């Protein structure tokens, strides 16, 4: 089975998410990476994880990837090289490229998946619903290419010692009115400490903190534990912290050694982003809160009292 993976780079290297998808794809068939940008610099790393070919559009010159990369993909498919399955990361660019391509190919999209299986020409994907307590497996019907998006950390990124992938140019064709949006400036929000989705310890705060000012307690505890501070969607929507702090369905997926949920009730939206943590500690006033259903240690109490005491005890240890 021929499989494409929509590949992304950051700081000149393939993203971890890209390598996760390529590592999984190679267990199902022959893997081609499709990249919106330059392919030569990353062909080695992509090949090492199992890609034998890289289609590269070349510099997108400020065009948004959704329109540009989907148009380049469509041109290659029309040229006769159609994959059976195209795997996308469940993130901004992945969703945009997949959405545009689904219309061009008139194919459905299956999103939020955590697993994929192939049998003959049939492809099935699995997605967790209701906060992850139910797994739904769906099989694509009709003709491929089948389009599926996968959540971060669904698969392990592991090299298999492959040689550099062959780079093949896949230029972006004329996109007309659809391609007229342009990125004119890029802003990176500086954060200190470990990255939220890579930290061994994550401390997240939610509505239970009561007010925006109390979020300082989360940051202090995260710093003390050399971890990263996170947040529920509720307090991001309320403007207490930037979106980059959000853990959950629409934010970051984290799988730390320890996850501390402080004042978070455990909405589905949040739980799908953190229930992969090895150890979960929850502090919440409401003993009926869903978060206690997945917590290894639950403290039923007021976070604004428990957190300062915890911080003081940790600081006293030095």
């Amino acid at each position, binding site marked *: 089975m021929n499989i494409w993976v929509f590949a992304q780079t950051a700081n000149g290297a393939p993203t971890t998410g890209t390598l996760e998808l390529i590592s999984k794809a190679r267990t199902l068939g022959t893997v081609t990476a499709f990249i919106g940008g330059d392919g030569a610099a990353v062909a080695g790393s992509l090949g090492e994880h199992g890609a034998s070919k890289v289609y590269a559009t070349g510099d997108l010159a400020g065009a*948004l990837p959704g329109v540009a990369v989907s148009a380049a993909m469509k041109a290659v498919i029309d040229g006769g090289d159609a994959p059976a399955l195209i795997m996308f990361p469940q993130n901004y660019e992945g969703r945009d490229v997949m959405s545009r391509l689904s219309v061009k190919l008139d194919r459905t999209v299956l999103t939020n998946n955590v697993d994929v299986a192939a049998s003959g020409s049939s492809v099935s994907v699995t997605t967790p619903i209701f906060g992850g*307590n139910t797994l*739904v497996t769906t099989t694509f*019907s009709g003709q491929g290419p089948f389009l599926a998006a996968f959540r971060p950390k669904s698969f392990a990124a592991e090299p298999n010692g492959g040689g550099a992938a062959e780079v093949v140019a896949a230029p972006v064709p004329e996109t007309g009115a659809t391609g007229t949006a*342009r990125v004119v400036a*890029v802003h990176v929000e500086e954060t200190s400490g470990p990255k939220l989705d890579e930290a061994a310890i994550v401390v997240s705060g939610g509505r239970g903190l009561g007010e925006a000012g109390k979020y300082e307690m989360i940051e202090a505890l995260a710093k003390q534990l050399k971890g990263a501070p996170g947040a529920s969607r509720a307090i991001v929507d309320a403007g207490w912290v930037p979106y980059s702090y959000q853990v959950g369905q629409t934010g970051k997926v984290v799988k730390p050694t*320890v996850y501390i949920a402080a004042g978070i009730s455990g909405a589905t939206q949040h739980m799908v982003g953190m229930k992969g943590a090895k150890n979960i500690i929850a502090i919440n006033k409401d003993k009926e809160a869903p978060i206690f259903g997945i917590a290894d240690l*639950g403290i039923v109490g007021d976070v604004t009292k428990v957190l300062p005491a915890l911080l003081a005890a940790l600081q006293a240890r030095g």
Partner: protein
Amino acid sequence: MNVIVCVKQIPDPAAPGALDPATKTLKRDGKPILDESDSYGVEMALQLVDAAGGGEVSIVSMSSADEVTGLRTALAMGAAKGTIVSDPALKGSDALTTAKVLAAAIQRMGGADLILAATESSDGYTGTVPEQMAEVLGLPSVTFAKKVVVDGGSLKVDRQTESGYDEVTCPLPAVVSVTAGVVEPRYPSFKGIMAAKSKPIDVVSASDLGVSPVGWAGSGQDITSIEQAEARAAGTIIEDDGEGFAKIVAYLENLKVI
């Protein structure tokens, strides 16, 4: 400037979700409400039309049931009129079909300078409809917008990225999906609620729009199994007696992370 906002009526999120055993789709009975995610789009549309000094906000929606209570909320906030594609045949429709139906409805409404949508619904969260709709309509799009300014015939958008945000320019007409929390949605006033009762809602069927196939037939997928995920082993839950913090310290010590 005329703005169309795509909105969705969803089951009350406070009620627990369930699947219909017969169709394996999300159960959507009960009184639907306006998806909170959509209230941001409605608010932004109202502010942009105000800033432009004229024009109106319309809403468009799709449903397999004959319900408009959620739409009335958007009208009470200040939208002028609405179109709903309401058709039992739409049950089981995938995101692509939804995008085709909404695009056809938008064309029937005469189009707009700007089409706004949320990034994803709170019940299905596929998150692809705005971009698919843009492709069907042949329009440019900017997804995951956290700030939108109209400057003459074009948009200036701050677009959320993994590491910060990008400034993006885009000529109108265009489709923009907005993240939650970008504006503070207004509460409908009593006057607004009363006025909404008489605002026009155009109810059309999928066949009126000439979109087919819809529903399960057009969804390109079959649900092949539904299983319970492996549950996490039950943990220790204790009431804080003032010493709860010490339990956490001991737990962290045991894991050797402190």
